[in-house]
Protein backbone atom coordinates (compact mmCIF):
# COMPACT_ATOMS: atom_id res chain seq x y z
CA UNK A 1 0.00 0.00 0.00
CA UNK A 2 1.61 3.19 -1.09
CA UNK A 3 -0.70 5.52 0.76
CA UNK A 4 -1.45 5.46 4.38
CA UNK A 5 -4.89 4.27 5.44
CA UNK A 6 -6.06 5.02 8.90
CA UNK A 7 -9.42 5.41 10.53
CA UNK A 8 -9.59 8.41 12.88
CA UNK A 9 -11.54 7.57 15.99
CA UNK A 10 -14.09 10.34 15.62
CA UNK A 11 -17.57 9.43 16.76
CA UNK A 12 -20.77 11.40 16.39
CA UNK A 13 -23.66 11.90 18.71
CA UNK A 14 -27.26 11.18 17.80
CA UNK A 15 -29.07 14.52 18.00
CA UNK A 16 -30.79 17.29 16.08
CA UNK A 17 -28.31 18.79 13.66
CA UNK A 18 -27.80 21.35 10.96
CA UNK A 19 -27.59 20.43 7.28
CA UNK A 20 -23.86 21.22 7.35
CA UNK A 21 -23.26 18.78 10.17
CA UNK A 22 -25.01 16.01 8.27
CA UNK A 23 -22.87 16.81 5.28
CA UNK A 24 -19.78 16.59 7.44
CA UNK A 25 -20.83 13.24 8.89
CA UNK A 26 -21.75 11.77 5.52
CA UNK A 27 -18.32 12.73 4.21
CA UNK A 28 -16.72 10.79 7.03
CA UNK A 29 -18.96 7.80 6.30
CA UNK A 30 -18.04 7.95 2.62
CA UNK A 31 -14.34 8.07 3.52
CA UNK A 32 -14.80 4.99 5.66
CA UNK A 33 -16.53 3.20 2.82
CA UNK A 34 -13.78 3.98 0.34
CA UNK A 35 -11.04 3.00 2.78
CA UNK A 36 -12.59 -0.19 4.05
CA UNK A 37 -13.55 -1.37 0.58
CA UNK A 38 -10.16 -0.57 -0.83
CA UNK A 39 -8.56 -2.63 1.92
CA UNK A 40 -11.06 -5.44 1.49
CA UNK A 41 -10.36 -5.62 -2.25
CA UNK A 42 -13.96 -6.67 -2.84
CA UNK A 43 -17.41 -5.42 -1.91
CA UNK A 44 -20.17 -3.05 -2.84
CA UNK A 45 -19.20 0.58 -3.29
CA UNK A 46 -22.22 1.86 -5.19
CA UNK A 47 -25.10 1.36 -2.81
CA UNK A 48 -22.97 2.06 0.24
CA UNK A 49 -21.99 5.52 -0.98
CA UNK A 50 -25.46 6.20 -2.33
CA UNK A 51 -27.18 5.74 1.02
CA UNK A 52 -24.64 7.56 3.22
CA UNK A 53 -26.80 10.67 3.47
CA UNK A 54 -29.78 8.68 4.70
CA UNK A 55 -27.66 6.83 7.25
CA UNK A 56 -26.20 10.14 8.47
CA UNK A 57 -29.66 11.53 9.21
CA UNK A 58 -31.19 8.31 10.57
CA UNK A 59 -28.38 7.47 12.99
CA UNK A 60 -27.04 10.92 13.88
CA UNK A 61 -30.11 13.10 13.62
CA UNK A 62 -31.98 11.82 16.65
CA UNK A 63 -34.44 9.68 14.72
CA UNK A 64 -33.26 6.23 15.75
CA UNK A 65 -33.19 5.43 19.44
CA UNK A 66 -30.09 3.41 20.34
CA UNK A 67 -27.38 3.22 22.97
CA UNK A 68 -23.98 1.90 21.87
CA UNK A 69 -23.00 1.37 25.52
CA UNK A 70 -25.94 -0.91 26.13
CA UNK A 71 -26.86 -1.81 22.67
CA UNK A 72 -29.04 -4.82 23.42
CA UNK A 73 -31.41 -2.72 25.50
CA UNK A 74 -34.76 -4.25 24.59
CA UNK A 75 -36.33 -0.83 24.31
CA UNK A 76 -34.15 0.24 21.43
CA UNK A 77 -35.44 1.06 18.00
CA UNK A 78 -34.43 -1.44 15.36
CA UNK A 79 -32.71 -0.89 12.09
CA UNK A 80 -32.59 -3.82 9.69
CA UNK A 81 -30.45 -3.62 6.60
CA UNK A 82 -32.40 -5.82 4.23
CA UNK A 83 -30.14 -4.93 1.34
CA UNK A 84 -27.27 -6.75 3.06
CA UNK A 85 -24.61 -6.19 0.45
CA UNK A 86 -24.27 -2.52 1.36
CA UNK A 87 -22.94 -3.59 4.76
CA UNK A 88 -19.97 -1.17 4.46
CA UNK A 89 -22.22 1.85 5.09
CA UNK A 90 -23.81 0.11 8.06
CA UNK A 91 -20.42 -0.83 9.50
CA UNK A 92 -19.10 2.72 9.02
CA UNK A 93 -22.21 4.12 10.66
CA UNK A 94 -22.03 1.78 13.64
CA UNK A 95 -18.35 2.54 14.10
CA UNK A 96 -18.99 6.29 14.01
CA UNK A 97 -21.85 5.87 16.43
CA UNK A 98 -19.54 4.17 18.90
CA UNK A 99 -20.65 0.56 18.66
CA UNK A 100 -17.07 -0.53 18.03
CA UNK A 101 -13.73 1.09 17.32
CA UNK A 102 -13.45 2.54 13.81
CA UNK A 103 -10.09 0.87 13.31
CA UNK A 104 -11.98 -2.40 12.97
CA UNK A 105 -13.30 -1.11 9.64
CA UNK A 106 -9.91 -2.13 8.24
CA UNK A 107 -10.84 -5.80 8.71
CA UNK A 108 -13.86 -5.78 6.40
CA UNK A 109 -14.36 -9.13 4.62
CA UNK A 110 -11.17 -10.63 5.98
CA UNK A 111 -10.88 -14.07 7.54
CA UNK A 112 -11.83 -13.87 11.20
CA UNK A 113 -13.35 -10.40 10.98
CA UNK A 114 -16.55 -9.39 12.72
CA UNK A 115 -17.27 -7.37 9.59
CA UNK A 116 -18.48 -10.15 7.34
CA UNK A 117 -19.05 -9.51 3.65
CA UNK A 118 -22.74 -9.57 4.40
CA UNK A 119 -23.86 -8.95 7.99
CA UNK A 120 -23.55 -12.16 9.99
CA UNK A 121 -25.12 -12.41 13.40
CA UNK A 122 -22.69 -15.16 14.31
CA UNK A 123 -19.81 -12.67 14.08
CA UNK A 124 -21.16 -10.84 17.13
CA UNK A 125 -20.57 -7.32 15.92
CA UNK A 126 -22.40 -4.86 18.21
CA UNK A 127 -25.27 -3.17 16.45
CA UNK A 128 -25.96 -5.98 13.98
CA UNK A 129 -29.55 -7.06 14.50
CA UNK A 130 -29.64 -9.89 11.98
CA UNK A 131 -27.75 -11.59 9.21
CA UNK A 132 -28.78 -10.49 5.77
CA UNK A 133 -27.58 -10.90 2.22
CA UNK A 134 -30.33 -12.90 0.62
CA UNK A 135 -32.48 -10.11 -0.73
CA UNK A 136 -35.98 -9.67 0.62
CA UNK A 137 -35.55 -11.46 3.92
CA UNK A 138 -34.56 -8.53 6.12
CA UNK A 139 -37.70 -6.58 5.51
CA UNK A 140 -39.85 -9.47 6.74
CA UNK A 141 -37.66 -9.82 9.80
CA UNK A 142 -38.25 -6.12 10.40
CA UNK A 143 -42.00 -6.65 10.14
CA UNK A 144 -41.67 -9.33 12.82
CA UNK A 145 -39.84 -6.89 15.07
CA UNK A 146 -42.38 -4.14 14.53
CA UNK A 147 -45.14 -6.65 15.28
CA UNK A 148 -43.39 -7.55 18.52
CA UNK A 149 -43.00 -3.91 19.51
CA UNK A 150 -46.61 -3.03 18.82
CA UNK A 151 -48.55 -6.07 19.96
CA UNK A 152 -46.37 -8.02 22.38
CA UNK A 153 -43.86 -5.70 24.03
CA UNK A 154 -46.27 -2.78 23.67
CA UNK A 155 -43.44 -0.27 23.63
CA UNK A 156 -43.46 2.87 21.53
CA UNK A 157 -40.31 1.87 19.71
CA UNK A 158 -39.86 1.98 15.97
CA UNK A 159 -38.49 -0.40 13.41
CA UNK A 160 -36.73 0.90 10.33
CA UNK A 161 -35.62 -1.14 7.40
CA UNK A 162 -33.87 -0.39 4.14
CA UNK A 163 -34.29 -2.35 0.96
CA UNK A 164 -32.82 -1.78 -2.46
CA UNK A 165 -35.02 -1.11 -5.47
CA UNK A 166 -33.85 -4.18 -7.37
CA UNK A 167 -34.72 -6.03 -4.19
CA UNK A 168 -38.36 -5.11 -4.76
CA UNK A 169 -38.42 -7.67 -7.55
CA UNK A 170 -38.40 -10.41 -4.89
CA UNK A 171 -41.99 -11.43 -4.28
CA UNK A 172 -41.44 -12.01 -0.59
CA UNK A 173 -41.00 -8.26 -0.24
CA UNK A 174 -44.67 -7.81 -1.15
CA UNK A 175 -45.66 -10.41 1.41
CA UNK A 176 -43.90 -8.23 3.96
CA UNK A 177 -45.66 -5.12 2.66
CA UNK A 178 -49.07 -6.79 2.83
CA UNK A 179 -48.51 -7.98 6.37
CA UNK A 180 -47.19 -4.60 7.57
CA UNK A 181 -50.33 -2.91 6.41
CA UNK A 182 -52.62 -5.74 7.52
CA UNK A 183 -51.24 -5.32 11.04
CA UNK A 184 -51.41 -1.53 10.87
CA UNK A 185 -47.73 -1.25 11.76
CA UNK A 186 -47.59 2.51 12.00
CA UNK A 187 -44.34 2.04 13.93
CA UNK A 188 -42.72 0.60 10.82
CA UNK A 189 -40.66 2.68 8.40
CA UNK A 190 -39.47 1.19 5.12
CA UNK A 191 -36.80 3.07 3.22
CA UNK A 192 -36.31 2.15 -0.43
CA UNK A 193 -32.90 3.01 -1.85
CA UNK A 194 -34.26 3.95 -5.25
CA UNK A 195 -31.09 4.37 -7.29
CA UNK A 196 -32.58 2.67 -10.35
CA UNK A 197 -29.51 0.48 -10.53
CA UNK A 198 -28.99 -3.19 -9.93
CA UNK A 199 -26.27 -5.60 -11.03
CA UNK A 200 -27.27 -6.12 -14.64
CA UNK A 201 -28.21 -2.52 -15.33
CA UNK A 202 -30.99 -0.01 -14.80
CA UNK A 203 -33.87 -1.42 -12.77
CA UNK A 204 -36.13 -0.22 -15.57
CA UNK A 205 -34.28 -2.51 -17.97
CA UNK A 206 -33.64 -5.54 -15.80
CA UNK A 207 -37.22 -5.82 -14.51
CA UNK A 208 -39.41 -2.80 -14.38
CA UNK A 209 -40.67 -2.13 -10.86
CA UNK A 210 -42.42 1.16 -11.59
CA UNK A 211 -44.71 2.88 -10.70
CA UNK A 212 -43.40 2.54 -7.17
CA UNK A 213 -45.44 5.03 -5.19
CA UNK A 214 -48.67 3.51 -6.55
CA UNK A 215 -47.52 0.01 -5.66
CA UNK A 216 -46.80 0.88 -2.06
CA UNK A 217 -50.03 2.85 -1.78
CA UNK A 218 -51.99 -0.09 -3.14
CA UNK A 219 -50.24 -2.22 -0.52
CA UNK A 220 -51.50 0.10 2.20
CA UNK A 221 -48.58 2.39 2.94
CA UNK A 222 -48.28 6.10 3.55
CA UNK A 223 -45.69 6.91 0.92
CA UNK A 224 -43.32 9.81 0.71
CA UNK A 225 -40.96 10.17 -2.22
CA UNK A 226 -37.84 12.23 -1.60
CA UNK A 227 -34.44 13.17 -2.92
CA UNK A 228 -32.27 10.84 -0.89
CA UNK A 229 -29.37 13.25 -0.93
CA UNK A 230 -31.28 16.26 0.28
CA UNK A 231 -30.92 16.39 4.06
CA UNK A 232 -33.97 18.59 4.55
CA UNK A 233 -36.12 16.15 2.64
CA UNK A 234 -34.70 13.19 4.52
CA UNK A 235 -35.32 14.95 7.82
CA UNK A 236 -38.87 15.83 6.94
CA UNK A 237 -39.55 12.29 5.72
CA UNK A 238 -38.50 10.80 9.06
CA UNK A 239 -40.41 13.53 10.86
CA UNK A 240 -43.47 12.70 8.83
CA UNK A 241 -43.08 9.03 9.71
CA UNK A 242 -42.93 9.87 13.40
CA UNK A 243 -46.09 11.95 13.06
CA UNK A 244 -47.83 9.27 11.00
CA UNK A 245 -47.02 6.72 13.61
CA UNK A 246 -49.27 8.64 15.97
CA UNK A 247 -51.98 9.74 13.57
CA UNK A 248 -52.16 7.07 10.93
CA UNK A 249 -52.76 3.36 11.04
CA UNK A 250 -50.52 2.83 8.08
CA UNK A 251 -46.87 1.92 7.89
CA UNK A 252 -44.65 4.44 6.13
CA UNK A 253 -42.60 3.94 3.01
CA UNK A 254 -39.91 6.44 2.11
CA UNK A 255 -38.92 6.15 -1.52
CA UNK A 256 -35.53 7.81 -1.56
CA UNK A 257 -34.31 8.71 -5.03
CA UNK A 258 -30.58 8.32 -4.86
CA UNK A 259 -27.58 7.98 -7.10
CA UNK A 260 -25.45 4.90 -6.78
CA UNK A 261 -21.87 5.89 -5.93
CA UNK A 262 -22.96 9.40 -4.85
CA UNK A 263 -20.12 11.72 -3.94
CA UNK A 264 -17.44 10.22 -6.14
CA UNK A 265 -17.56 11.70 -9.61
CA UNK A 266 -16.47 8.65 -11.51
CA UNK A 267 -18.81 6.30 -9.67
CA UNK A 268 -21.94 8.37 -9.62
CA UNK A 269 -25.02 6.78 -11.16
CA UNK A 270 -23.03 3.94 -12.69
CA UNK A 271 -24.45 0.50 -12.04
CA UNK A 272 -21.08 -1.02 -12.85
CA UNK A 273 -20.10 0.17 -9.35
CA UNK A 274 -22.75 -2.01 -7.71
CA UNK A 275 -20.34 -4.65 -6.49
CA UNK A 276 -16.75 -3.56 -6.94
CA UNK A 277 -14.27 -1.79 -4.66
CA UNK A 278 -11.97 1.04 -5.71
CA UNK A 279 -8.45 0.07 -6.65
CA UNK A 280 -5.60 2.10 -5.22
CA UNK A 281 -5.65 4.82 -7.83
CA UNK A 282 -9.41 5.11 -7.60
CA UNK A 283 -9.35 5.14 -3.82
CA UNK A 284 -6.83 7.99 -3.78
CA UNK A 285 -8.86 9.93 -6.28
CA UNK A 286 -12.08 9.29 -4.33
CA UNK A 287 -10.58 10.40 -1.04
CA UNK A 288 -9.24 13.53 -2.70
CA UNK A 289 -12.67 14.36 -4.01
CA UNK A 290 -14.16 13.90 -0.58
CA UNK A 291 -11.47 16.09 0.97
CA UNK A 292 -12.21 18.75 -1.57
CA UNK A 293 -15.91 18.66 -0.73
CA UNK A 294 -14.94 18.90 2.92
CA UNK A 295 -12.77 21.93 2.31
CA UNK A 296 -15.54 23.60 0.37
CA UNK A 297 -17.98 22.87 3.11
CA UNK A 298 -15.68 24.34 5.77
CA UNK A 299 -15.09 27.40 3.66
CA UNK A 300 -18.76 28.02 3.06
CA UNK A 301 -19.47 27.42 6.73
CA UNK A 302 -16.99 30.11 7.63
CA UNK A 303 -18.55 32.48 5.16
CA UNK A 304 -21.98 31.95 6.72
Amino acid at each position, binding site marked *: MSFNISFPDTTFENKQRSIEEFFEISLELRRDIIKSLFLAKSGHSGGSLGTADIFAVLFFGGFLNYDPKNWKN*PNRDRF*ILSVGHIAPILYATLARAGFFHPSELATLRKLGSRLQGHP*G*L*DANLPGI*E*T*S*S*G*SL*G*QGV*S*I*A*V*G*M*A*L*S*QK*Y*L*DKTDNFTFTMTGDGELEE*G*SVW*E*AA*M*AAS*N*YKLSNFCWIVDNNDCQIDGRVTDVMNIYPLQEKFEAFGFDVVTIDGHNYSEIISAFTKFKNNSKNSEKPTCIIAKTYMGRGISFMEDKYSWHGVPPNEEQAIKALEELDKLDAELKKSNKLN
Partner: protein
Amino acid sequence: MKYKSYGKIPTRKGFGEGLVELGEQNPNIVVLGGDITSSVLTSFFRDKFPDRFFSIGIAEQNATTIAVGLALSGKIPFFSSYSAFSAFRNADQLRISVAYNNANVKIGGGHSGVTVGPDGATHQSLEEVAFLRTLPNMTLIVPADYNETKKATIASGNMFGPTFIRFGRSAGESFTTPESEFIIGKANQLTDGNDVAIFACGTLVWEALLAAEELEKQKGIKARVINLHTIKPIDYEAIVNAAKECGAIVTAEEHQIHGGMGSAVAEVVVKNYPVPMEFIGIQDRFGLSGEPEELMQYFNLNHQTIFASALRAIERRDKGFDKIRKVIDFNK
Protein backbone atom coordinates in the same frame (compact mmCIF):
# COMPACT_ATOMS: atom_id res chain seq x y z
CA MET B 1 -45.51 -57.51 22.63
CA LYS B 2 -44.47 -55.01 25.24
CA TYR B 3 -46.18 -52.18 23.32
CA LYS B 4 -49.79 -51.90 22.51
CA SER B 5 -51.75 -49.42 20.48
CA TYR B 6 -53.95 -47.04 22.42
CA GLY B 7 -55.90 -46.31 19.27
CA LYS B 8 -55.46 -44.08 16.31
CA ILE B 9 -54.82 -40.45 17.17
CA PRO B 10 -53.48 -37.92 14.65
CA THR B 11 -49.96 -36.75 15.49
CA ARG B 12 -50.95 -33.18 14.64
CA LYS B 13 -53.27 -33.25 17.62
CA GLY B 14 -50.17 -33.68 19.74
CA PHE B 15 -48.69 -30.63 18.08
CA GLY B 16 -51.79 -28.52 18.71
CA GLU B 17 -52.10 -29.60 22.33
CA GLY B 18 -48.39 -29.19 22.95
CA LEU B 19 -48.60 -25.60 21.80
CA VAL B 20 -51.42 -24.87 24.22
CA GLU B 21 -49.47 -26.39 27.08
CA LEU B 22 -46.41 -24.34 26.15
CA GLY B 23 -48.56 -21.24 25.88
CA GLU B 24 -49.79 -21.75 29.39
CA GLN B 25 -46.26 -22.16 30.74
CA ASN B 26 -44.54 -19.36 28.87
CA PRO B 27 -45.95 -16.00 27.81
CA ASN B 28 -43.25 -15.66 25.16
CA ILE B 29 -44.70 -18.46 23.06
CA VAL B 30 -46.38 -17.01 19.99
CA VAL B 31 -47.88 -18.78 16.99
CA LEU B 32 -48.08 -17.72 13.36
CA GLY B 33 -50.83 -19.03 11.12
CA GLY B 34 -50.39 -19.93 7.47
CA ASP B 35 -54.04 -20.35 6.49
CA ILE B 36 -54.10 -23.98 7.47
CA THR B 37 -54.65 -23.33 11.14
CA SER B 38 -57.25 -25.98 11.64
CA SER B 39 -55.34 -28.50 9.52
CA VAL B 40 -52.18 -28.34 11.62
CA LEU B 41 -54.21 -27.55 14.72
CA THR B 42 -52.52 -24.32 15.65
CA SER B 43 -56.18 -23.37 15.93
CA PHE B 44 -56.15 -24.74 19.50
CA PHE B 45 -53.58 -22.09 20.43
CA ARG B 46 -55.32 -19.34 18.46
CA ASP B 47 -58.59 -19.97 20.24
CA LYS B 48 -56.95 -19.98 23.64
CA PHE B 49 -54.41 -17.17 23.19
CA PRO B 50 -55.75 -14.92 20.45
CA ASP B 51 -53.38 -12.11 21.46
CA ARG B 52 -50.36 -14.27 20.80
CA PHE B 53 -51.57 -15.61 17.49
CA PHE B 54 -50.87 -13.82 14.22
CA SER B 55 -52.40 -14.88 10.94
CA ILE B 56 -49.89 -14.31 8.14
CA GLY B 57 -51.96 -15.80 5.34
CA ILE B 58 -50.51 -17.93 2.57
CA ALA B 59 -46.99 -16.56 2.70
CA GLU B 60 -44.58 -19.12 4.06
CA GLN B 61 -41.52 -17.03 3.30
CA ASN B 62 -42.89 -14.07 5.18
CA ALA B 63 -44.18 -16.15 8.09
CA THR B 64 -40.77 -17.75 8.53
CA THR B 65 -38.89 -14.46 8.52
CA ILE B 66 -41.49 -12.68 10.65
CA ALA B 67 -40.89 -15.52 13.09
CA VAL B 68 -37.20 -14.65 12.96
CA GLY B 69 -37.99 -11.01 13.78
CA LEU B 70 -40.08 -12.18 16.73
CA ALA B 71 -37.36 -14.56 17.90
CA LEU B 72 -34.75 -11.81 17.70
CA SER B 73 -37.13 -9.79 19.89
CA GLY B 74 -37.08 -12.47 22.57
CA LYS B 75 -40.21 -14.37 21.61
CA ILE B 76 -40.51 -18.08 20.88
CA PRO B 77 -42.47 -18.23 17.64
CA PHE B 78 -43.97 -21.38 16.14
CA PHE B 79 -44.98 -21.41 12.50
CA SER B 80 -46.60 -24.39 10.92
CA SER B 81 -47.96 -25.36 7.54
CA TYR B 82 -47.98 -28.44 5.39
CA SER B 83 -44.43 -29.72 5.47
CA ALA B 84 -44.27 -29.33 1.68
CA PHE B 85 -44.63 -25.58 2.12
CA SER B 86 -43.04 -24.90 5.51
CA ALA B 87 -39.81 -26.66 4.51
CA PHE B 88 -39.47 -25.68 0.84
CA ARG B 89 -41.40 -22.55 -0.06
CA ASN B 90 -39.30 -20.90 2.64
CA ALA B 91 -36.07 -22.87 2.18
CA ASP B 92 -33.83 -19.84 1.65
CA GLN B 93 -35.37 -18.20 4.71
CA LEU B 94 -34.81 -21.36 6.75
CA ARG B 95 -31.21 -21.54 5.65
CA ILE B 96 -30.17 -17.94 6.18
CA SER B 97 -32.57 -16.16 8.50
CA VAL B 98 -33.40 -19.11 10.73
CA ALA B 99 -30.38 -21.45 10.73
CA TYR B 100 -27.49 -19.07 10.03
CA ASN B 101 -28.96 -16.56 12.51
CA ASN B 102 -29.41 -19.43 14.95
CA ALA B 103 -32.78 -17.85 15.65
CA ASN B 104 -35.06 -19.45 18.19
CA VAL B 105 -37.71 -20.27 15.62
CA LYS B 106 -39.82 -23.43 15.68
CA ILE B 107 -41.34 -24.79 12.52
CA GLY B 108 -44.03 -27.41 12.35
CA GLY B 109 -44.19 -29.45 9.18
CA GLY B 110 -47.61 -31.05 9.18
CA HIS B 111 -49.27 -33.32 6.63
CA SER B 112 -45.92 -34.85 5.75
CA GLY B 113 -45.41 -38.03 3.82
CA VAL B 114 -47.78 -40.13 1.74
CA THR B 115 -50.27 -40.47 4.58
CA VAL B 116 -51.61 -37.08 3.48
CA GLY B 117 -53.51 -39.35 1.15
CA PRO B 118 -55.81 -38.21 -1.66
CA ASP B 119 -54.36 -34.69 -1.99
CA GLY B 120 -51.61 -36.37 -3.99
CA ALA B 121 -47.96 -35.79 -4.80
CA THR B 122 -47.71 -32.03 -4.49
CA HIS B 123 -48.81 -32.21 -0.88
CA GLN B 124 -46.89 -35.36 0.05
CA SER B 125 -43.56 -33.99 1.17
CA LEU B 126 -40.95 -36.73 1.14
CA GLU B 127 -37.77 -34.70 0.84
CA GLU B 128 -37.58 -32.32 3.74
CA VAL B 129 -35.50 -34.45 6.11
CA ALA B 130 -32.68 -34.44 3.55
CA PHE B 131 -32.69 -30.67 3.35
CA LEU B 132 -33.23 -29.86 7.00
CA ARG B 133 -30.67 -32.22 8.47
CA THR B 134 -28.05 -30.54 6.33
CA LEU B 135 -28.61 -27.12 7.88
CA PRO B 136 -26.17 -26.24 10.67
CA ASN B 137 -27.82 -25.27 14.00
CA MET B 138 -31.06 -27.02 13.06
CA THR B 139 -32.73 -29.56 15.31
CA LEU B 140 -34.97 -31.96 13.43
CA ILE B 141 -37.53 -34.21 15.08
CA VAL B 142 -39.85 -36.77 13.51
CA PRO B 143 -42.01 -38.03 16.36
CA ALA B 144 -43.66 -41.43 16.19
CA ASP B 145 -47.17 -40.79 17.42
CA TYR B 146 -49.55 -38.45 19.15
CA ASN B 147 -47.96 -38.49 22.61
CA GLU B 148 -44.48 -38.14 21.25
CA THR B 149 -45.45 -35.23 19.01
CA LYS B 150 -46.86 -33.48 22.03
CA LYS B 151 -43.68 -34.10 23.99
CA ALA B 152 -41.50 -33.04 21.07
CA THR B 153 -43.46 -29.82 20.70
CA ILE B 154 -43.12 -28.98 24.35
CA ALA B 155 -39.45 -29.95 24.47
CA SER B 156 -38.68 -27.85 21.43
CA GLY B 157 -40.35 -24.83 23.02
CA ASN B 158 -38.20 -25.32 26.08
CA MET B 159 -34.86 -25.54 24.28
CA PHE B 160 -33.04 -22.75 22.49
CA GLY B 161 -32.45 -22.90 18.77
CA PRO B 162 -34.04 -23.51 15.40
CA THR B 163 -36.20 -26.61 15.44
CA PHE B 164 -38.32 -28.38 12.87
CA ILE B 165 -40.93 -30.94 13.88
CA ARG B 166 -42.27 -33.13 11.10
CA PHE B 167 -45.61 -34.79 11.67
CA GLY B 168 -48.51 -36.28 9.80
CA ARG B 169 -52.13 -35.72 9.01
CA SER B 170 -53.71 -39.11 9.41
CA ALA B 171 -54.41 -40.96 12.54
CA GLY B 172 -51.63 -43.43 13.27
CA GLU B 173 -51.34 -45.99 16.00
CA SER B 174 -50.56 -44.35 19.30
CA PHE B 175 -48.34 -46.46 21.51
CA THR B 176 -46.01 -44.21 23.50
CA THR B 177 -47.43 -43.05 26.79
CA PRO B 178 -47.41 -39.68 28.49
CA GLU B 179 -44.83 -41.18 30.86
CA SER B 180 -42.36 -42.67 28.40
CA GLU B 181 -39.10 -40.80 28.19
CA PHE B 182 -38.50 -38.29 25.42
CA ILE B 183 -35.22 -36.41 25.21
CA ILE B 184 -34.28 -34.48 22.09
CA GLY B 185 -31.23 -36.13 20.57
CA LYS B 186 -31.59 -39.39 22.47
CA ALA B 187 -32.93 -42.35 20.53
CA ASN B 188 -35.38 -44.62 22.32
CA GLN B 189 -34.57 -48.29 22.23
CA LEU B 190 -37.95 -50.00 22.27
CA THR B 191 -36.99 -53.67 22.16
CA ASP B 192 -33.87 -55.56 23.15
CA GLY B 193 -32.09 -57.73 20.65
CA ASN B 194 -28.72 -58.28 19.03
CA ASP B 195 -29.69 -60.04 15.83
CA VAL B 196 -30.59 -57.01 13.78
CA ALA B 197 -31.22 -53.35 14.52
CA ILE B 198 -34.24 -51.54 13.09
CA PHE B 199 -34.09 -47.75 13.15
CA ALA B 200 -37.44 -46.17 12.44
CA CYS B 201 -39.07 -42.80 12.79
CA GLY B 202 -42.55 -41.36 12.45
CA THR B 203 -45.28 -43.67 11.21
CA LEU B 204 -42.82 -46.51 10.67
CA VAL B 205 -41.94 -47.04 14.33
CA TRP B 206 -45.15 -48.93 15.00
CA GLU B 207 -44.57 -51.01 11.87
CA ALA B 208 -41.07 -51.79 13.12
CA LEU B 209 -42.50 -53.06 16.38
CA LEU B 210 -44.91 -55.30 14.49
CA ALA B 211 -42.07 -56.60 12.33
CA ALA B 212 -39.94 -57.32 15.39
CA GLU B 213 -42.76 -59.29 16.92
CA GLU B 214 -43.10 -61.38 13.76
CA LEU B 215 -39.35 -61.89 13.46
CA GLU B 216 -39.26 -63.32 16.93
CA LYS B 217 -42.40 -65.40 16.49
CA GLN B 218 -41.62 -66.81 13.04
CA LYS B 219 -37.83 -66.94 13.07
CA GLY B 220 -36.68 -66.60 16.63
CA ILE B 221 -34.84 -63.46 15.60
CA LYS B 222 -34.47 -60.83 18.28
CA ALA B 223 -34.58 -57.42 16.67
CA ARG B 224 -33.52 -54.22 18.39
CA VAL B 225 -36.12 -51.61 17.47
CA ILE B 226 -34.93 -48.04 17.90
CA ASN B 227 -37.16 -45.02 17.62
CA LEU B 228 -34.83 -42.45 16.10
CA HIS B 229 -37.16 -39.52 16.65
CA THR B 230 -34.39 -36.94 16.53
CA ILE B 231 -32.62 -36.95 13.22
CA LYS B 232 -30.50 -33.98 14.03
CA PRO B 233 -28.51 -33.96 16.23
CA ILE B 234 -28.29 -37.68 15.62
CA ASP B 235 -27.66 -40.19 18.38
CA TYR B 236 -24.21 -41.51 17.40
CA GLU B 237 -23.99 -43.84 20.35
CA ALA B 238 -27.23 -45.64 19.60
CA ILE B 239 -26.15 -46.18 16.02
CA VAL B 240 -22.58 -47.24 16.69
CA ASN B 241 -23.72 -49.64 19.40
CA ALA B 242 -26.33 -51.11 17.11
CA ALA B 243 -23.76 -51.60 14.36
CA LYS B 244 -21.31 -53.27 16.75
CA GLU B 245 -23.77 -55.38 18.63
CA CYS B 246 -26.16 -56.36 15.84
CA GLY B 247 -23.98 -56.19 12.73
CA ALA B 248 -26.97 -55.54 10.47
CA ILE B 249 -29.23 -52.52 10.24
CA VAL B 250 -32.58 -51.71 8.71
CA THR B 251 -33.95 -48.20 8.51
CA ALA B 252 -37.59 -47.32 7.87
CA GLU B 253 -39.13 -43.94 7.24
CA GLU B 254 -41.95 -42.24 5.36
CA HIS B 255 -39.48 -40.24 3.24
CA GLN B 256 -37.25 -40.64 0.23
CA ILE B 257 -34.49 -43.15 0.92
CA HIS B 258 -32.07 -40.66 -0.62
CA GLY B 259 -30.84 -38.24 1.99
CA GLY B 260 -33.32 -39.19 4.69
CA MET B 261 -32.96 -40.66 8.16
CA GLY B 262 -31.52 -43.88 6.75
CA SER B 263 -28.89 -41.88 4.95
CA ALA B 264 -27.99 -40.11 8.20
CA VAL B 265 -27.60 -43.49 9.88
CA ALA B 266 -25.47 -44.74 6.98
CA GLU B 267 -23.10 -41.78 7.41
CA VAL B 268 -22.50 -42.74 11.03
CA VAL B 269 -22.21 -46.42 10.22
CA VAL B 270 -19.51 -46.22 7.55
CA LYS B 271 -17.62 -43.60 9.53
CA ASN B 272 -17.54 -45.81 12.62
CA TYR B 273 -18.39 -49.43 12.05
CA PRO B 274 -19.47 -50.50 8.58
CA VAL B 275 -22.18 -53.14 8.49
CA PRO B 276 -24.82 -54.10 5.91
CA MET B 277 -27.85 -51.86 5.80
CA GLU B 278 -31.27 -52.02 4.18
CA PHE B 279 -33.31 -48.89 3.51
CA ILE B 280 -37.07 -48.72 3.62
CA GLY B 281 -38.67 -45.57 2.32
CA ILE B 282 -39.84 -44.03 -0.92
CA GLN B 283 -37.66 -45.24 -3.76
CA ASP B 284 -36.92 -42.01 -5.60
CA ARG B 285 -40.34 -41.22 -6.96
CA PHE B 286 -43.19 -38.83 -6.17
CA GLY B 287 -46.33 -39.82 -4.32
CA LEU B 288 -49.85 -40.06 -5.68
CA SER B 289 -53.49 -39.89 -4.66
CA GLY B 290 -55.00 -42.68 -2.63
CA GLU B 291 -56.07 -43.47 0.88
CA PRO B 292 -53.28 -43.28 3.48
CA GLU B 293 -53.45 -46.99 4.28
CA GLU B 294 -53.50 -47.92 0.61
CA LEU B 295 -50.47 -45.77 -0.08
CA MET B 296 -48.48 -47.20 2.80
CA GLN B 297 -49.04 -50.61 1.25
CA TYR B 298 -48.46 -49.39 -2.29
CA PHE B 299 -45.09 -47.93 -1.33
CA ASN B 300 -44.15 -50.90 0.84
CA LEU B 301 -44.03 -48.85 4.00
CA ASN B 302 -45.18 -51.63 6.27
CA HIS B 303 -44.05 -54.29 8.70
CA GLN B 304 -43.93 -56.94 5.98
CA THR B 305 -41.25 -55.01 4.16
CA ILE B 306 -39.34 -54.39 7.38
CA PHE B 307 -39.55 -58.09 8.16
CA ALA B 308 -38.16 -59.06 4.76
CA SER B 309 -35.47 -56.39 4.89
CA ALA B 310 -34.33 -57.54 8.30
CA LEU B 311 -33.85 -61.06 6.95
CA ARG B 312 -31.93 -59.69 4.00
CA ALA B 313 -29.67 -57.57 6.20
CA ILE B 314 -28.95 -60.56 8.43
CA GLU B 315 -28.23 -62.75 5.44
CA ARG B 316 -25.87 -60.18 3.98
CA ARG B 317 -24.04 -59.86 7.27
CA ASP B 318 -23.65 -63.61 7.59
CA LYS B 319 -22.59 -64.08 4.00
CA GLY B 320 -20.11 -61.29 4.45
CA PHE B 321 -18.47 -63.08 7.33
CA ASP B 322 -18.27 -66.22 5.23
CA LYS B 323 -16.59 -64.33 2.47
CA ILE B 324 -14.11 -62.79 4.82
CA ARG B 325 -13.45 -66.18 6.35
CA LYS B 326 -12.52 -67.44 2.91
CA VAL B 327 -10.25 -64.49 2.33
CA ILE B 328 -8.56 -65.11 5.60
CA ASP B 329 -8.18 -68.82 4.97
CA PHE B 330 -6.71 -68.01 1.65
CA ASN B 331 -4.30 -65.57 3.16
CA LYS B 332 -2.84 -67.68 5.92
